[in-house]
């Protein structure tokens, strides 16, 4: 019964979508000054139907309706309510339904909030957005329908992958999807603006909000995924350059570039075509992300349902959208306003171009690194792995000039700026940064000219940003975000050179000494929780008189049968102490891994600061 409601509402959505595509296409040819009320009505119907089908699925999950095959495959009656709900989007079918929900919801919001804009532009945006919605609907209904029946009705479900039963991972996908889907509005809107010849500063300030929304959600989404990997995967790292992680990072680089170039378009009315190209690319990357993750083409820790027919569908759909965008772009190039303005070498415009330049470079490294093994295997039948050392080698050296330009950029005025012969405060900052960095690197035996320079320019950026808070003329959100980035760089660098770890095989009662610390394995207990059994280890760390107790867990889930290690982390503002233990075959022995990670928490805080800058900008806090 409930399955029918969900499925039928999706079919109604499909009809509405086809109707809206035809309707908006016709209206875009001969339209009145006033927008037809039917748009509002049909969009509301579509939104309502999507919400209905989504909540039908949530409902089926909450009440463990195993007549639904998606629920059967991914849920279990013993699961806590919270994970029953989050289980709705913890699987392939449900997550696509969530995509669809956000797609229709955003289109509706766009329609309601764009009343001041050109009528034809709004209609065309609906047209493009409905094409995307139609594609997703077809994909859901014909390759991954979440409302299939199973008969006879099983008594019990198969359970959700325990590794996904985690608060951070429960809300990580929705945030990421909001980010991804936001880029679809940017895509549709920029194509519509291009056709209606309205790519200008008015459009820029209108679309900037959508860019900010996507950017904020994408940033926080990536952050949560990273925090999850830090404590759940138990390796103590926070970024593994895993293909699935990379796939979320690519649209982020692109959006960050777009966020900067849209400011130029808004203030100076230049960079029209570049902004449109970025909009198209950002969305294409979000879509390719879905393709790469969902098709199972990547080799990754995050394995999802692998079904090649799904891959073929998304790939074809992606090809269609990208070609559509390319055609529209090239056949409407004359529509870009001819606002030729002279560019000067030293200007805010140039500094933002430099930002875009580096962002595109970082993007290309991640893109090439992620996609290259696939291409090489197809073309040359050779298998290679591209891992952290590759990304570090290519990205890290370029951070040095990037940080330098980032420190200087915001100080430069629009249009043209004269360089003073010697800016004393800048020189003081630079010398100060260098001296500090020199001592840091000297004291840690890292002994690389490289790290000294990285530290120097990170500090240099940091001092510059702090200094800029005194000035009243520049904008608050930029300062907060840049401050966030400089803290981010510094905490990663400190974390990198000062992290310490020790791994040993221990049994209960063992005591080991390392780095002036003493670690005692006091006890191990078996406890049971609602849906898993657990081994709780009790450890005592004596760090020069300072005592820290750890209680890491090994969880044994029965549905499906899985063992996970839960690290115990004691966090302070200065450092994290991280301890995880895992079973090894030799009787009674456990592998115990201790890590000391300085300034770990600042990595998370700094990313939040960056996002907070975006929030300030969204709420126009910097316009006085």
């Amino acid at each position, binding site marked *: 019964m409930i399955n029918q409601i969900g499925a039928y509402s999706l079919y109604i959505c499909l009809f509405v979508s086809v109707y809206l595509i035809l309707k908006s296409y016709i209206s875009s040819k001969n339209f009145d000054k006033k927008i037809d009320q039917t748009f509002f009505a049909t969009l509301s119907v579509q939104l309502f139907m999507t919400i209905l089908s989504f909540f039908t699925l949530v409902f089926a999950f909450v009440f463990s309706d195993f007549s639904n095959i998606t629920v059967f495959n991914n849920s279990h009656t013993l699961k806590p309510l919270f994970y029953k709900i989050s289980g709705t989007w913890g699987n392939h079918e449900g997550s696509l339904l969530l995509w669809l929900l956000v797609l229709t919801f955003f289109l509706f919001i766009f329609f309601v909030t764009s009343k001041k804009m050109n009528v034809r532009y709004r209609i065309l945006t609906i047209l493009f957005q409905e094409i995307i919605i139609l594609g997703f609907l077809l994909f859901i209904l014909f390759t991954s329908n979440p409302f299939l029946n199973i008969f006879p009705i099983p008594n019990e479900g198969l359970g959700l992958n325990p590794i996904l039963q985690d608060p951070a991972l429960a809300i990580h996908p929705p945030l990421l999807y909001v980010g991804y889907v936001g880029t679809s509005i940017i895509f549709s809107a920029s194509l519509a603006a291009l056709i209606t010849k309205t790519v200008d500063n008015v459009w820029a300030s209108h679309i900037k909000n959508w860019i900010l929304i996507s950017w904020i959600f994408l940033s926080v989404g990536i952050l949560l995924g990273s925090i999850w990997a830090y404590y759940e995967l138990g*390796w103590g790292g926070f970024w593994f350059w895993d*293909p699935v992680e990379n796939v979320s990072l690519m649209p982020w680089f692109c959006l960050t570039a777009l966020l900067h170039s849209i400011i130029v378009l808004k203030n100076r009315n230049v960079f029209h075509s570049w902004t449109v190209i970025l909009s198209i690319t950002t969305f294409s990357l979000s879509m390719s992300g879905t393709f790469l993750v969902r098709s199972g083409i990547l*080799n*990754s*820790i*995050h*394995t999802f349902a692998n079904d090649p027919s799904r891959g073929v569908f998304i790939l074809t759909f992606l090809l269609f959208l990208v070609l559509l965008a390319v055609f529209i772009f090239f056949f409407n190039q004359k529509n870009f306003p001819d606002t030729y303005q*002279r*560019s*000067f*070498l030293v200007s805010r415009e*140039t500094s933002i*171009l*430099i930002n875009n*330049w580096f962002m*595109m*470079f970082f993007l*290309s*490294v991640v893109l*090439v*690194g992620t996609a*290259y093994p696939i291409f*090489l295997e197809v073309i*040359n039948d*050779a*298998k*290679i*792995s*591209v*891992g*952290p*050392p*590759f990304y570090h*080698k*290519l990205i890290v050296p*370029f951070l040095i000039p990037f940080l330098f330009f980032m420190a200087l950029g915001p100080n430069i005025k629009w249009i043209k700026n004269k360089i003073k012969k010697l800016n004393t*405060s800048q020189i*003081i900052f630079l010398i*100060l940064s260098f001296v*500090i960095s020199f*001592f*840091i690197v000297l*004291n*840690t*035996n890292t002994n690389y000219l490289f790290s000294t320079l990285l530290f120097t320019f990170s500090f240099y950026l940091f*001092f510059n940003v*702090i*200094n800029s808070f*005194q000035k009243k003329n520049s904008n608050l959100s930029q300062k907060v975000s840049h401050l966030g980035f400089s803290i981010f760089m510094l905490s990663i660098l400190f974390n990198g*050179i*000062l992290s*310490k770890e020790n791994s040993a095989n221990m049994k209960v009662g063992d005591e080991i000494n390392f*780095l*002036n610390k003493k670690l005692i394995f006091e006890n191990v207990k078996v406890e049971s929780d609602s849906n898993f059994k657990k081994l709780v280890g009790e450890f005592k760390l004596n760090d020069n008189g300072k005592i820290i107790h750890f209680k890491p867990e090994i969880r044994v889930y029965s549905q499906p049968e899985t063992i996970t290690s839960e690290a115990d982390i004691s966090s302070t503002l*200065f450092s994290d102490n991280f301890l995880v233990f*895992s079973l*090894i075959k030799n009787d009674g022995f456990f*592998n115990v891994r201790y890590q*000391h990670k*300085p300034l770990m928490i600042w990595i998370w805080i700094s990313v939040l600061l960056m996002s907070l800058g975006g929030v300030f900008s969204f709420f126009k806090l910097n316009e006085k």
Partner: protein
Amino acid sequence: MKKISLILLILIINTLHSNMSFADKKKNIDHITKNLRCLICQGQSVYDSQSDFALSMKKLIRIKIKEGNTEDEIYNFLKEKYGEWIVYEPEVNKNTIFLWGLPLILFIFGGLLIIRKVTIK
């Protein structure tokens, strides 16, 4: 402003000193195993994995280091057994020239575009 910087400097150096005592050179074995892919575990390095395969691998590498093999010799030995797939950092050869080169080419190309843009009169 200068005062603020000075205070900051003192603060930073202070926190550093408390952390310094742990600072020590990374062990070679960790460095090598982090660059090796655990072939039977999805997307984990040998360093991170506790599988039989990874444990034996670590042991073998420890022996190889004791015997005086260099990092590159160990990589080559393993590549001969398991193929290029086992190392996370692909060496530059005719297969991977574009992997390393393409981003750099794009960077130079982008730089040229910007220079052209800002110098057009």
